[in-house]
């Protein structure tokens, strides 16, 4: 069972690497925020897997819960930062509501 957890952890780590491509290459800032939040969710699971591998699940659960909360708060904070901005792309008009809901 331990080796199964190891394999799952390694495949999740590979998926994190693939997400990291989008975080580095992403055309807009939003893409980067999305991929960082996805990486955070995967890290929550990886931390728990590490806890089961080392047989200290009771300790790693608290770390993983802290990571989940920090990930959520961080994503909210960064997107809140962009709420009030009119445009991150220079020269583009603000998307009107009627235009979006046509």
């Amino acid at each position, binding site marked *: 069972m331990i080796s199964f957890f190891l394999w799952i952890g390694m495949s999740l780590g590979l998926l994190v690497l693939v997400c990291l491509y989008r975080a580095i290459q992403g055309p807009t800032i939003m893409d980067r925020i999305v991929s960082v939040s996805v990486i955070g969710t995967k890290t929550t699971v990886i931390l728990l897997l590490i806890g089961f591998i080392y047989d200290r699940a*009771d300790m790693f659960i*608290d770390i993983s*819960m802290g990571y989940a909360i920090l990930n959520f708060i961080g994503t909210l904070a960064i997107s809140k930062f962009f709420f009030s901005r009119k445009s991150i792309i220079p020269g583009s008009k603000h998307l009107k*509501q009627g235009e*979006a*809901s046509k």
Partner: protein
Amino acid sequence: MRYAITFIVLFVNWIIWSGLLDAFHLSLGVISCLLVTFMSHDLLFKRTEFRAGDIAEIFRFIMYIPWLMYQIILSNIHVAKIVLNPAMPIDPEVVSYKHNLKKDVSIMTFANSITLTPGTITAEIVDGEFLVHCLDKKVTDDLNTGEMEDRIAHVFAEDK
């Protein structure tokens, strides 16, 4: 009343997360829960009166969860099919959806449910209206049947 309920919720959380049941840790928990309750009693519940219908509301919400789980699994299979298809058959569009819900908690549940169900994301909430980003035409028709809104209105006792 809401002081008491906030305190009970916080203290149950304290016991679960500390896992220690001796007198020292329990008294620490009582002190810190009282402090937090005193400072932020108006965050968890906005209203001050509680009715007997609230308990029935919680039970109806628990009954709503299995249907939501079924929808979530359907939506994940839908997205997995689209993503793993080499042709990527998507046709995204943004539609607005009018709803008749009033309570904050039902609007929040409805928005989260829309995000979790097939091919739709709630983008913006203006009064009485959602902007929903849909992945293709079929899911837009599914959304416009309004089945989910009826269920949530039933859960939070808003249907007339």
